[in-house]
């Protein structure tokens, strides 16, 4: 079949043009096969990475029509049938080296930053015994990650803060936080780091990473697990509010857990978020005081609810029942060993 591609060409990574190529490929061809045909038969200067062509090496991440894909996992036939001509460009959030090749070093630097290795002793003479619940459906999806960078390419938070650890590194971090072979002390130390600047609370929950991951890792879910574990180990004091309360003015403190805790407490009380409490309880009263001029500007623009009129749910009992349900589900989840290291369910 005949495939037409528009490819963003950039010989030096700086300037770029878009070129159109038409090639003949097999019906079963993937985007990678089509690129190979372009390189072999049209223009040998085209640059892209490839190796396994079976969606496991993670080399061929790139964008098609503005969204990240693995070229070797993207069939061309549906596009040809629709008469669609896709635009192929390099991944986002990473510097371009040439054509579809990006510099992955910033990506790997973040992977290295999360201490991506198990903290156990070496030279064992036998295996760890791992307690293994039989029914364990969502075990260690994080271990499926092939480090292709598709999630990072689409990460909205990283676009605004290039130093954000990002979905891939945080999924890697969860792979260890969730590993029962590590001690609670190791886990606490990891969580403390991840609660720092550019850590888990910078995620805007846009879910583009989940949507674009070609391997079903669901990085956003991993970040949510890290948040939940931070509550469990931080108890709101180690990473959260109480430290912040007395933090000197101007100190940068990560408000993550404290911020989330306000939501919890507030909805527990009245079924609604009490927004007037949000800022002071998250960043501390002193820091909040400095934000008063900003709050007044917001009030003038009609963006602040009346602090004297508290929101309260009409049927707060129902909210409380919902909370009980959530708490019970969380307990069951823990008992099932959600954070179990094994990525497969057990052998019978």
């Amino acid at each position, binding site marked *: 079949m005949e495939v037409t591609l528009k490819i963003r060409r950039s010989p030096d990574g700086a300037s770029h043009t878009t070129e159109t190529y038409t090639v003949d490929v097999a019906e*079963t061809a993937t985007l990678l096969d089509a690129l190979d045909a372009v390189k072999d038969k049209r223009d040998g*200067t085209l640059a892209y990475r490839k190796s*396994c062509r079976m969606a*496991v*090496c993670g080399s061929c991440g790139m964008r098609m029509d503005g969204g990240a894909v693995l070229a070797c996992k993207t069939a061309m036939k549906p596009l040809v049938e629709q008469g669609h001509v896709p635009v192929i460009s390099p991944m986002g959030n990473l510097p371009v080296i040439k054509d579809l090749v990006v510099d992955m070093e910033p990506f790997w630097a973040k992977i290295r930053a999360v201490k991506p*290795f198990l903290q156990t002793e070496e*030279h064992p003479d036998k*295996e760890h015994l791992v307690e293994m619940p039989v029914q364990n459906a969502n075990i260690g999806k994080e271990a499926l990650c*092939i480090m292709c960078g598709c999630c990072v390419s689409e990460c909205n938070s990283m676009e605004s803060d290039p130093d954000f650890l990002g979905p891939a590194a945080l999924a890697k971090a969860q792979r260890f936080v969730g590993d029962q072979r590590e001690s609670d002390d190791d886990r606490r130390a990891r969580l403390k780091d991840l609660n720092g600047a550019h850590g888990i609370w910078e995620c805007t929950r846009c879910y583009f990473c989940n949507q674009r991951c070609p391997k079903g890792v669901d990085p956003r879910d991993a970040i949510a697990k890290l948040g939940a574990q931070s509550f469990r180990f931080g108890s709101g004091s180690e990473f959260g509010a109480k430290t912040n309360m007395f933090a000197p003015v101007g100190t940068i403190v990560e408000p993550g857990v404290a911020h989330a805790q306000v939501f919890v407490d507030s909805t527990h009380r009245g079924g609604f978020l009490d927004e007037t409490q949000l800022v002071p309880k998250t960043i501390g009263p002193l820091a909040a005081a400095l934000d008063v001029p900003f709050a007044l500007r917001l009030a003038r623009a009609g963006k602040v609810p009346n602090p004297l009129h508290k929101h309260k749910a009409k049927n707060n009992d129902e909210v409380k029942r919902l909370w009980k349900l959530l708490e019970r589900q969380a307990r069951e989840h823990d008992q099932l060993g959600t954070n179990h290291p094994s990525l497969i369910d057990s052998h019978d």
Partner: protein
Amino acid sequence: MLRHDVVVVGAGLAGMRAAIEAKRAGADVAIVSKLHPTRSHSGSAEGGINAALGNASEDSPEIHTFDTVKGSDYLGDQDAIEIMCTEAPGDIYELEHMGAVFSRFADGRIAQRPFGAAGSPRTVYSADITGHVLIHVLYEQLVKYEVPVYEEFFAIDLAIDGGRCVGVLAWDIVGGGVHGISAHNTILATGGVGRMYYGTTNAYACTGDGMSMAWRAGVPLKDMEFMQFHPTTLKSNGVLITEGCRGEGGYLRNASGERFMAEAAPNAMELASRDVVARAESKEIEEGRGVDGCVLLDLTHLGAKKIHARLPGSRELAMDYAGVDPILEPIPVRPGAHYHMGGVDADVDGRTLMPGLYAAGECACVSVHGANRLGGNSLMETITFGRRAGSHAGHDAIEHRNGGLVADSAVRDVDARVRAIFARSSGQRPWQVREELATVMYDYAGIFRTQERLEHCLGTIGELRERGTSVVVDDSGDRFNTDLLSVFELESMLEMADCLVTGALARQESRGAHTRLDFRERDDERWMKHTLAWCDGGKVRLDYKPVTITRFEPMARSY
């Protein structure tokens, strides 16, 4: 000048395991690799890694050794096999402590599944993505040990000084330019050369670069004629469907639904040795009992639950590349070039005949696989012999540390070669020669070989080697020039194909994966010996050396 005690070329499982062990020995070690480590082809391994843990049923290193010796059709060196099978359990425990996530039995112990030609369920696995799990674990250790990696550096040649290997000459893919990287000891761990075949499970990167560098430098390659054809690969792109599918109970059927393995291996059936299964499949297809050039791998009776739990990766691959959901219908499969038993002649510590040069993993031939490798033994080989090579090279470098330096003139020579390629103006494009090579290899040096077919193949290779020296590139820039790399990769594949076919033509017997229709029996009297292929002025010269037999006398082999 870049300089280290030990330089490892290649960053798959063998290369990374070697680097970690050299580092543990106290050496300053670095890796040179044309791919980022986790992109290496080891990550595509699916079914598992063999060690006699005895977690599934009674097992021992002795039984593992015997199965491997028999599987090798008695061409494997029994001392090396015994070392691997004895050290395998410790290596598995260590991988597990490093962080490998293996599948478990309900009581928490590491699970083991049955694999072809194994006397007991011996294959340790992580669902059907074992290679993926292991490559990431070793990369994690590389980060932990802070081993530097010259990432996306393409090694073009070994640097030799007075008969000793003193490092490598490599092209910086991202920025361009030739660099000499000096080392007291150099370890080749560059993997196989499956890409010389049209139908192959191998990644695009598997082009035999390390083997050809060694061969050109005068180091002999061993048993190059033995290429394993995996019985279950997809027709569209050669992607591997793991032997684990049959280990979990999958059937092979022909067009009329018969389980044809009943004839070739009435006892082991689908779990006979790979050479036996691949031959039986080829016979079905050639005699007209196939389906569109394939046979059928039937998993439908295993049920959705088992497929989801144990074979999720295979299901994904079948759906992506064959348009088939194995829960509902059988997968069309055919044999494809998978694993090269041959490689750089190396001893049990990875040492080659050249001082300063080691080899480990698929690019080496120790030999533990002989004429036919058992499924699950190659991952084990990368770990055990990667570790041993790294340990020996590391300790040796610290003790002696007298290694030479890569000469500036050698860097200039390689740079001149690159510039000469850029300057060529008339000739074929590399892909044209590569496609011809891959087709002639699959058609004439595949599963069933004859003198006539091999002679035809060798003639074509000679002509292609000629044409290969004048292929032209479109891209003559220094920046990320994969067009240039394809010229060097082509050169390697052509040389390795020459070694393979020359060895195959000479070996007048059928043994393991080498099947001669004109010499159908194994001939221990004449051919119980390793082939050595030397480079003699660019041509292949054959020589032979004895097989090490310790405990198991050769017997007839049936499954």
